[in-house]
């Protein structure tokens, strides 16, 4: 092998100018002596590069070679699902849970959006507006019915004897209220859910006049005279259970305090009353004097009328109505009218 290479390097110029074509022919014609010829070729080309070929200076930047335009392959896509759906399919299985709108699944020709000039409103394909809005495709009437059926086995019948509000109030006079809050956040905690409200009608508590008066003084504006309802709101503890217990405690304490009569409560004078009480008043004494003078008892209806008129006059103040009522009641008692 070595002598062959040496011989090749010593080849004449004529041999070196072997045309490309001839060399190719040589390659083709004698595949059996490939090694021999390739060695010749390398040596020859090296010599040519050294002697004659110069690198050309390219001015004006490299010429941009036009590349053949890339052919976009079509992505194989399935036909929209609604075309494969039977008309009597079970929609609850197609759309079982809340999900953004998908035009290929929903077999409805819905459109949404403000139409551009001279165009129809945007259709469902590629319509982001339809994907934004919440939909109720998972809560169709048959699905709701099915869910209600499934939930029925967890329900118990309404307790007998609690049919109307009166009965409920009689058996369960105290109402406790608390709120739970659901946010779109990973936390289920809300500080507002600790607040507990207790409501009870005063008529369902066993109170006498003194106890009722005392309770009202204790609770202040937590009592609503229009509905006869006492409302206790507890929010001072961090947990709703603690607040609930505190509400119960408050109600118990209030009730027991109201029933108590402290020694100093007897010091209350007639003038300390917040409202005028006719019983035991000078007015009642005067009526008795009149009755004694007349020699016959005053009719019960007239006494009641007079009592109400006097109380109203004191409690609501003097105006034309109360004065007229009082005048009428007095004249009736005196037997003038």
């Amino acid at each position, binding site marked *: 092998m070595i002598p062959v290479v040496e011989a090749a390097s010593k080849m004449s110029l004529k041999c070196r100018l072997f045309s490309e074509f001839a060399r190719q022919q040589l390659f083709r014609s004698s595949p059996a002596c490939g090694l021999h010829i390739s060695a010749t070729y390398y040596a020859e080309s090296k010599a040519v590069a050294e002697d004659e070929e110069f690198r050309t200076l390219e001015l004006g930047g490299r010429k941009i070679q036009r590349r053949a335009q890339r052919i976009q392959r079509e992505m194989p896509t399935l036909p929209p699902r609604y075309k494969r759906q039977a008309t009597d399919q079970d929609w609850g299985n197609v759309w079982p849970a809340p999900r953004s709108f998908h035009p290929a699944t929903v077999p409805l020709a819905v459109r949404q*959006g403000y139409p551009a000039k001279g165009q129809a409103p*945007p259709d469902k*394909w590629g319509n982001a507006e339809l994907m934004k809005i919440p939909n109720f495709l998972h809560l169709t009437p048959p699905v709701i019915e099915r869910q209600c059926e499934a939930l029925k086995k967890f329900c118990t019948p309404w307790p007998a004897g609690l049919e109307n509000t009166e009965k409920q109030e009689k058996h369960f006079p105290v109402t406790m209220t608390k709120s739970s809050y659901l*946010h*779109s*956040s990973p936390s289920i905690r809300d500080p507002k859910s600790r607040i507990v409200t207790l409501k009870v009608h005063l008529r369902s508590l066993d109170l006498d006049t003194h106890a009722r008066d005392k309770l009202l003084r204790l609770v202040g504006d937590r009592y609503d005279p229009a509905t006869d309802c006492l409302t206790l709101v507890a929010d001072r503890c961090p947990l709703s259970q603690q607040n609930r217990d505190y509400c119960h405690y408050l109600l118990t304490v209030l009730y027991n305090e109201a029933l108590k009569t402290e020694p100093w409560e007897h010091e209350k004078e007639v003038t300390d009353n917040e409202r005028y009480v006719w019983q035991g008043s000078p007015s009642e004494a005067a009526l008795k004097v009149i009755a004694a003078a007349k020699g016959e008892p005053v009719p019960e209806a007239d006494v009641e009328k007079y009592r109400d008129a006097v109380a109203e006059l004191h409690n609501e103040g003097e105006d034309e109505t109360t004065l007229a009522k009082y005048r009428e009641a007095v004249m009736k008692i005196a037997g003038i009218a």
Partner: protein
Amino acid sequence: MSLSHFKHIPKAWTNQWLLRNAVGLQSTCGLHTTPAACKVQSGRYKVTTDRSRPLTYEMANQPCQIAHRKSWNTWNTTSLLDGQREPETVVEDIFIRKFMNGTWHDLFVSEVIIKRQHNMIRIAGIVQQRIAARKMYFLIGYCEELLSYWLKCPVKLEIQTVTDKKSVIYKYI
């Protein structure tokens, strides 16, 4: 025009002005003010002369049309009364948008819609069919997995695909 033309200027002021000018001590102090540029530019696109700028429905409607012609891209309860985690939610939404746009590179042709329900985050949007379906399925799972790991709550991707970018174009301006 002499100063005497301004009849309403008090005499004292005129004297002061004359004095200053005469002595060459005209005051150089003063607050330089320019009129406020009441220019509103966000969410508005320039009209081209040949009407060649494509706009999606979202782009074609200005921000003032939100709740009238278009709805919000983010749905959650933070802005309600006593809503919770408002700053956290905003930052998470920015992150989700950046992540989605980067992961689905040059594929989204709509805005990224983020809807939150309880602890669930549902991300919706319209994507071009430029990559193979298999790659899309991979990206869906990849995004769901990573986002739910980072945000510590279940994340669902609800992607709709369109064959061409042009199918979401609403009008040209």
